[in-house]
């Protein structure tokens, strides 16, 4: 069974530029999550999708971050414009969701450096 795929693995941009990350979840997983992990901290949820609908985006800085999950499969997370404090690893995770299980499966992450 293929795991969660993410690309790119690394990205370096200048502040005020825009960047986009892509995620392909495990086949059949209805729930998709984007997390931000700053160095020395645990992952922090940015947004949660159930199929192609948003369940929780309370921690997403909506003035600069956006995310979509078209057709309930792949997802993209965009930052525009980027700030220095956005330097972090962006993790995508998926799960069966609901009563099927709480366990989330993570991709390898995208390490973003904003200069």
């Amino acid at each position, binding site marked *: 069974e293929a795991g969660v795929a993410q690309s790119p693995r690394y990205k370096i941009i200048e502040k005020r530029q825009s960047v986009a990350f892509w995620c392909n979840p495990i086949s059949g997983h209805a729930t998709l999550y984007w997390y931000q992990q700053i160095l*020395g901290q*645990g*992952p922090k949820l940015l947004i*949660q999708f159930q199929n192609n609908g948003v369940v929780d985006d309370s921690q997403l800085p909506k003035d600069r971050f956006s995310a979509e999950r078209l057709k309930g499969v792949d997802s993209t997370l965009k930052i525009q414009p980027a700030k220095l404090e956005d330097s972090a690893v962006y993790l995508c995770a998926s*799960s069966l969701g609901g009563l099927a299980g709480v*366990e989330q499966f993570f991709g*390898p992450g995208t390490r973003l450096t904003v200069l």
Partner: protein
Amino acid sequence: DQQVKQNSPSLSVQEGRISILNCDYTNSMFDYFLWYKKYPAEGPTFLISISSIKDKNEDGRFTVFLNKSAKHLSLHIVPSQPGDSAVYFCAASGGGGKLIFGQGTELSVKP
């Protein structure tokens, strides 16, 4: 407001001995707890979990203990192996699938 806390940023243990990683939480509505293991440049991988209706769950060398009255859980690894060296995160869920993670504890198992 940190709802899940791992107060030890690092832990060093000799190979073959027991590793004990601790986690405290503040929200009594959490009903499911998980431990994840993370190697450098990889995403976290699920290790073991426990429901709030239990106080212990065991899987091979890994055992998780939950003390609800103290709002505390711990992960025991016996015996510890050098391949266990990684960052360990505890996470809590209060329903809806959302996980709240602790800051992580870096475990180093020395041969």
